[in-house]
């Protein structure tokens, strides 16, 4: 190798991430619900370049979702109340899983139910498929009845995670909600029940009003707030989880750029997921990945693991000053 090419081909950083027995080629995935369930973004990015694809929530029975209007733009983000519209697990197994059989990256299937039984049944149905790398338990959807129930109390979170762990060989990730009153309690329950990773955070409940019409902008009145507006909150939760528990975290919440993603990695996230960003830039996940790669290279950081959790807090106080 001559001098110029050596300079040009500065060694690429090691982007691989391990969660349990799974090795992800890089730390970038997409947030459930923002990437469809199969080829929605195939015209824009090469799926196999991502560390993993995370599907929109799948439920036992088909769900038609909430009535319209379901979305509304807000400052630095949007509200949504889709209501877990999906065609159900049968259709997912028959039509969506085969699509992923040829795509050489991990598939994380997000599932939700109204009872422990629902989650268990869904995990069992997905268990035989080698195309599925992990299941992500959505216990944090603010837009359906009982969507947040399992995040409401640590005991319930523990029960559902434990029950799913018992019936599946797949690693189990649990997506937690900032709406949980006892966030750290719920987190701890998930960790103790054997969750292999946590995905943080889901959306926050919000609202917008049409003043002239005196009506909520969404048919369901409330919706989940996502986008850069919630990024500082998401970051704080990821940091808090990592401070208290030794569990891999998939950080998500308003990540638009590689810089945003790096914030989460420095806070301790193993992986990052672009969510609402995909809606405004279909190549957001790829650009984030390219940006992370570039940053590591330029800063001579040999591996993403050398950056993870390197936040220095000495001299910074977390508590608000008294008074």
């Amino acid at each position, binding site marked *: 190798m001559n001098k110029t090419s050596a300079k040009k081909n500065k060694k690429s950083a090691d982007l691989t991430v391990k969660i349990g027995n799974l090795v992800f080629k890089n730390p970038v995935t997409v947030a459930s619900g923002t990437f469809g369930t199969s080829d929605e973004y*195939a015209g824009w990015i090469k799926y196999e370049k991502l560390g993993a694809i995370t599907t929109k929530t799948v439920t036992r029975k088909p769900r*038609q979702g909430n009535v*319209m209007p379901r979305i509304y733009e807000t400052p630095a983000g949007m509200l949504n109340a889709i209501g877990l*519209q999906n065609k159900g697990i049968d259709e997912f197994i028959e039509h969506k899983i085969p699509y992923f059989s040829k795509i050489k990256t991990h598939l994380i299937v997000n599932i939700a139910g109204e009872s422990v039984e629902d989650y268990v049944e869904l995990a069992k149905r997905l268990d035989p498929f080698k195309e599925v790398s992990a299941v992500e338990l959505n216990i944090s959807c603010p837009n359906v009845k009982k969507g947040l129930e399992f995040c409401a109390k640590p005991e319930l979170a523990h029960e559902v995670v434990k029950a799913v762990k018992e019936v599946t060989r797949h690693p189990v990730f649990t997506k937690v909600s900032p709406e949980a009153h006892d966030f750290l309690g719920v987190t701890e329950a998930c960790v103790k029940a054997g969750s292999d990773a946590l995905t943080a955070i889901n959306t926050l409940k919000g609202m917008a009003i049409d003043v002239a019409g005196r009506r909520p902008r969404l048919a369901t009145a409330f919706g989940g707030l996502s986008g850069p507006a919630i990024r500082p909150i998401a970051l704080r939760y990821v940091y808090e989880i990592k401070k208290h528990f030794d569990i891999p975290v998939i950080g998500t919440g308003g990540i638009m750029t590689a810089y945003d993603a790096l914030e989460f990695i420095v806070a301790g996230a193993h992986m990052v997921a672009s969510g609402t960003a995909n809606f*405004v830039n*279909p190549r957001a996940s790829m650009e984030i990945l390219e940006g992370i790669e570039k940053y590591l290279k330029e800063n001579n950081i040999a591996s993403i693991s050398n950056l993870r959790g390197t936040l220095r807090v000495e001299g910074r106080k977390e508590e608000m000053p008294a008074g």
Partner: protein
Amino acid sequence: MDRNHAKKICLLPDMKMLDQMVAIGENTKIASHLYKVGFDSAGLAKILKPGHFLQVAVTDTYDPFLRRPYTIYRVKGSRLEILYHVVGRGSDILARKKRGDTLKVMGPLGNIFKINKNRINVVVGGGIGIAPFIFLGQKMRIDHFLMGARSKDGLLPRAEVGALWKKARFSTEDGSAGTQGFITRCLEEVIRETKDAKRIYLYACGPTPMMKAVMQMAAKYGIEGEASVEERMACGVGACLGCVAETRDGYKTSCVEGTVFTFDKLIL
């Protein structure tokens, strides 16, 4: 910036979708409530068909956050035109843009209008909903061009309608131009004047109440047709499920499975 300087951001070899930075060639007010913006994109001009829309980012700062869906109004050579009115922050920013300013446009998105050769093609546009029918008229013979608005300020001027002018009928709610009332009054005239009304094929785009009235009239006279629906959108690619339209086969994404739905499927 030279308008030919438009930078290609993304084109995958086997895919026909583009996300491009384009430079505005012209941005003009054509009626007191209507504007049009034109920019060059040879790549998009080649593949766009009537009914297609683009997701337009009016700034590069994600503020306003979402892109805006705009249907194609006219294609001339490599020049694309979009018709818009100022209804919120996004369109307000767009209206202030000058020649040379940039937009990011992504498309072509959505499905397209059916091209009929042997039917009596009647288009019905309400307000800004007239936009896709100028492009449709470039690709297909239109026999009747019906345009309704609240007042004459919302109607396309003659220079914009061009050759279709002699096939045009207008209505305004306030009676300031054309027939006073809703555009369905003009539509009923056309239907009654047509010997074999079953040969009519209707194309409708506009506010939901207007399209509903058009569909009811079509049902009354046994006329086929299709409507382009307008819902708030986030992604434009069928992922977010925020823009669904109700159809006889359940909710369908208006961005991918629409925006055009046939009257027999669409429920308004």
